[in-house]
């Protein structure tokens, strides 16, 4: 029938006009977000940007003051009860006296169409830990058990709130490998992280939040392009910043950290470089590099990274 053919696949996540305040502090100040099934999206922002509040509302743990939330067309409570969404929350410790298998079996028993526990264990890379008591797991192992707990409902949408916080490098790599295997099956993943290289490496799309609003949203490369596609650094004797800014393809010019060179953010680095060398024959010591997500992050959120516990490399 026509009605069936016209039916549109609902978005994995649809947020509209979402707001939440705690007293006079606004945590989320009206955000709209659509996520298509199959996307892997990183939600970034400094502490207090509203990421965790957004995640809590999305999962039905915190009611929004106003706005609408649907996950695959269903309200959050129904989506959670139906096993449509699985989540890894921050600050959840496991019951120390239970084994990994007991916890996963218990969660699986409550869902209608769960993933077999053995499969969740394998996907999370903890097949050898099934009989271990939670009290005897390392930090990285605990996180992967929590990933397995989120996978057991066999959800279409996986939500991870800072999943790799406090993990060492090896544990993080293993974690993302496990997450990648799951995402490769066409599932939707939304994660928050403090590690920008994780967003760059694992997300199709990044959403930057600041002060409860979304300040940038798009593919990683597009968000990076917002700060200028490439950056040219050069020694240009006697040139004034205004002259350099007037060069074709240059969107921003400022002195470099060493005080001698200048940094040119460029929308067209090739054109800018040709013009630079033509008009300033004395220019030298030229370096061209891609803008990093970190630069986009700083520029768009106005937040320094050092104090945020962000590993910026």
């Amino acid at each position, binding site marked *: 029938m026509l009605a069936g053919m016209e039916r549109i696949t609902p978005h994995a996540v649809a947020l509209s006009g979402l707001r939440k305040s705690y007293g006079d502090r606004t945590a989320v100040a009206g955000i709209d977000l659509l996520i298509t099934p199959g996307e892997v999206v990183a939600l970034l922002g400094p502490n207090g940007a509203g990421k965790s509040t957004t995640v809590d509302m999305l999962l039905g743990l*915190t009611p929004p003051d106003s706005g609408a939330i649907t996950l695959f067309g269903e309200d959050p409570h129904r989506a959670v009860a139906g096993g449509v969404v699985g989540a890894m929350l921050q600050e959840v410790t496991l*019951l120390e006296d*239970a084994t990994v298998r007991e916890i996963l079996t218990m969660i*699986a028993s*409550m869902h209608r169409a769960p993933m077999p526990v053995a499969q969740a264990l394998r996907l999370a890379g903890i097949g050898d830990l099934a009989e271990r008591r939670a009290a005897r797991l390392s930090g990285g192992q605990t996180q992967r058990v929590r990933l397995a707990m989120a996978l057991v409902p066999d959800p279409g949408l996986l939500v991870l709130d800072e999943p790799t916080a406090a993990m060492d490098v090896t544990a993080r790599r293993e974690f993302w490998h496990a997450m990648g295997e799951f995402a490769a099956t066409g599932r939707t993943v939304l994660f928050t992280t403090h590690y920008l290289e994780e967003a760059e490496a694992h997300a199709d799309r990044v959403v930057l939040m600041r002060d409860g609003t979304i300040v940038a949203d798009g593919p990683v490369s597009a968000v990076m392009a917002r700060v200028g596609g490439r950056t040219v650094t050069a020694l240009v004797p006697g040139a004034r910043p205004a002259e350099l800014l007037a060069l074709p393809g240059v969107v921003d010019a400022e002195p470099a950290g060493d005080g001698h060179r200048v940094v040119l953010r460029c929308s067209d680095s090739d054109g800018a470089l040709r013009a630079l060398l033509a008009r300033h024959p004395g220019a030298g010591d030229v370096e061209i590099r891609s803008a990093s997500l970190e630069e986009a992050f700083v520029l768009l959120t106005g937040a320094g990274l050092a104090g945020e516990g962000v590993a910026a490399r």
Partner: protein
Amino acid sequence: MKGGYLRFEVRRAVRDSRFLVFAVALPVGLFVLLSHLYQSQGATPAYLMGGLAAFGAFKAALDTGARTAVERGAGWQRQLRLTPLSGAGYLVAKGAVAMLVALPPVVGVALVAALTADVRLTAAPWALTVLGIWLGTVPFALLGLLVGQLCSARNVQTYQGGVLILLSFVGGLLIPVDAFPPVLAGVARVLPSYWLAEIGHGAVSGSGGSGAAPAVLAAYTVVLGVAVIVRYRRDGARA
């Protein structure tokens, strides 16, 4: 599908053998110590049995409920909110486990009373003592859950200890209320623990009890049940 969660909790409770042994050993040990004292004062050990069976049962139920404070502090309840398990399902499972661990102390005290203190009753008073006290423990399981929802994992033991002393001493479970000054005896008759022990006392005295005990305990069950549900719902949102 809720059965899976109950099974999980029962398994955890049964495995906690230290807790179970202590839950039985404390009232049984107290009975052995106090029954001689009672007899030397010309009181009947059967009366003490009612008090200590009530003590053992409600302490086990209260402790089990209150231990949910630890799970709440660890974020475990938030994790469970991401499953199809409803708030009611969680509370019912926890209450059921509290009731499960409340039974062995009652049976233990009854056994030691029969074997060591020569307490002799017919079948009906035995059944009334054991089953009546056990069933009367429901409001204490709810009280434990309420304490668990209200207290942080750090201060729960302090509150729980205070509640325990109030209910056991002032409720007349260790010392007969008849020996209390009138004001304290009045306070005792407000406490659910007094009425829980009354079930045992009534069974032993052959009067069968007045019917007031079940009524008071039922009223406590309703009030505490509502309080636990309201509190659990409010706790859903992270402040």
